[in-house]
């Protein structure tokens, strides 16, 4: 009996309904749905920036420092760029840093944490000391150091941010692997002679994922904040506009053109809020006890 079309159809249906079900559960949490909607809206706006923008990101030509109006929805900046367009393209880079730095932190931290947690022993001791070393260095110092050493290249900046935040990810994954590798289903897989690769990626990782997703999401918001800090300090790549870089430019004109600072600042807040709400929602979804529904009958 091989896998017939019928079975495949049923399989696909169950996969699809499973992810739909996850989505439904996320929207049933208190904030998860709001978080996801925020993230999706700002992601779509950034991805399809050319559709919503009036001009290119670095295009000049409008009168400078116009307040928000019907023509320039978010006003214009000191160089005469339409802030609406700049905001959209800046969102691209801010979100790219958020997502990519978090993904890189997950790859580095996840690998280190998984190896240390699964194999223990001297390997774990060495890996954990290295993690601690990075953990004790303040994130901003690592980033400042690498930017001043290697210059303000956009992708270098992403890597530097990832380097600053991976230790938290490593700690989280390590903790999950330590706990899960003692669970009976992992022991059973080992007793069945299944490969280490199988055990790490098929048995342990899927069960660590809920916790890890939460951390990745929080990491993304941290990355955006770090980038904003860098931009504000004038250390980001000046050829790539980002919300932080816009803040830096706007602060000079705070008294003359509030819109130059307020809009990018608000965008950073909204993005960070989105990631955090989403993380809260995922936590609540997988750990219903964390939600504090009021008790019906108290003791």
């Amino acid at each position, binding site marked *: 009996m091989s896998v017939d079309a019928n079975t495949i159809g049923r399989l696909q249906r169950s996969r699809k309904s499973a992810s739909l079900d996850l989505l439904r559960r996320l929207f049933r949490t208190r904030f998860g749905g709001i978080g996801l909607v925020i993230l999706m809206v700002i992601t779509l706006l950034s991805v399809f920036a050319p559709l919503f923008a009036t001009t290119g990101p670095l295009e000049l030509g409008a009168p400078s420092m116009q307040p928000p109006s019907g023509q320039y929805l978010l006003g214009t900046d000191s160089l005469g760029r339409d802030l609406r367009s700049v905001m959209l393209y800046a969102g691209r880079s801010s979100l790219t840093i958020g997502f990519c730095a978090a993904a890189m932190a997950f790859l580095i931290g996840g690998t280190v944490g998984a190896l240390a947690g699964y194999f223990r022993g001297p390997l774990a001791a060495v890996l954990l000391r290295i993690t601690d070393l990075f953990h004790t260095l303040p994130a901003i110092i690592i980033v400042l150091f690498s930017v001043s050493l290697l210059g303000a290249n956009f992708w270098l900046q992403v890597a530097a941010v990832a380097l600053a935040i991976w230790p938290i990810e490593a700690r989280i994954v390590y903790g999950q692997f330590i706990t899960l590798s003692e669970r009976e289903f992992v022991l059973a897989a080992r007793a069945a002679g299944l490969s280490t690769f199988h055990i790490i990626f098929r048995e342990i990782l899927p069960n660590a994922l809920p916790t890890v997703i939460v951390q990745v999401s929080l990491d993304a918001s941290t990355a955006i904040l770090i980038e904003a800090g860098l931009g504000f300090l004038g250390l980001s790549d000046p050829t790539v506009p980002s919300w932080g870089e816009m803040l830096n430019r706007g602060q000079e004109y705070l008294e003359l053109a509030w819109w130059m600072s307020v809009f990018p600042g608000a965008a950073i807040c909204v993005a960070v809020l989105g990631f955090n709400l989403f993380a809260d929602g995922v936590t609540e979804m997988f750990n219903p006890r964390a939600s504090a*529904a009021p*008790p*019906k*009958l*108290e*003791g």
Partner: protein
Amino acid sequence: MSDVAQPLLSARNVKVHLRVHGRIVKAVDGVDLDVLPGQCVGIVGESGSGKSTLGRAMTRLLPNVEIAELSGSVKFCGDDVLAMSSDTMRALRRHRGLSMVFQDPLSYLNPTLRIERQMAESLRHLPDRRAVQAKSVELLQQVGLADAERVLGLYPHELSGGMRQRVLIAMALAPDPQILVADEPTTALDATVQYQVIQTLRRLNQERNLAMLIITHDLGMVAELCDQVYVMHGGKIVEAADVFTLFEAPKHDYTASLLAAARRLHQTKALGGLA
């Protein structure tokens, strides 16, 4: 025992319907139950039978879940427990004696406080420290902890599982209760320790005439301890009888199947001589 006909705790048509993932689960579905003074009553059932929910409804300790319906009446000495305000309920627990003991003793003890402090919490009605100390020692001795003074100075993690459970029983005895409700009081314990705790409960029942409602899945424990047994299945009481009748002539098929399973597990081929 002139008031034999007057139940201490009685439930009439108790229904607890819970909302789980949008569906209604009839955890307890119309249960009648009586506990007479000094009587030891068992509720037996398997997981999902609703026995714990019933026990918690009767002591107003329902967990943090969505309740779709809670109806019927639970009377303790004639007062309706379900209709009481929480203050009245607290007073009832503290002074008039409706105490509860749970399955996992460690999670009901504060790990950062010595037993002495935790016992004193439940003895706040006493006038001074000396009285509290004396009463604590007395209670611990009643539950079979002979070196009570030493136990008072220990932290929960320094006690064995059986000692912890007995400390909790001692704390439950502090308000001088008329009834003790115990939900799987020995499930987390080793066999020898389980036996000690059961004997402690039995002695309290006999010597203090303390009424008990024991919620358990273990027919062995019921046989050891209870006078009257209610068998619960699917939220309903399927059979109620005194312990001897129930074990010798079960009326309901479900009871019979439970007993058959228990006998299968308790069959005594090598142990024939001992029993």
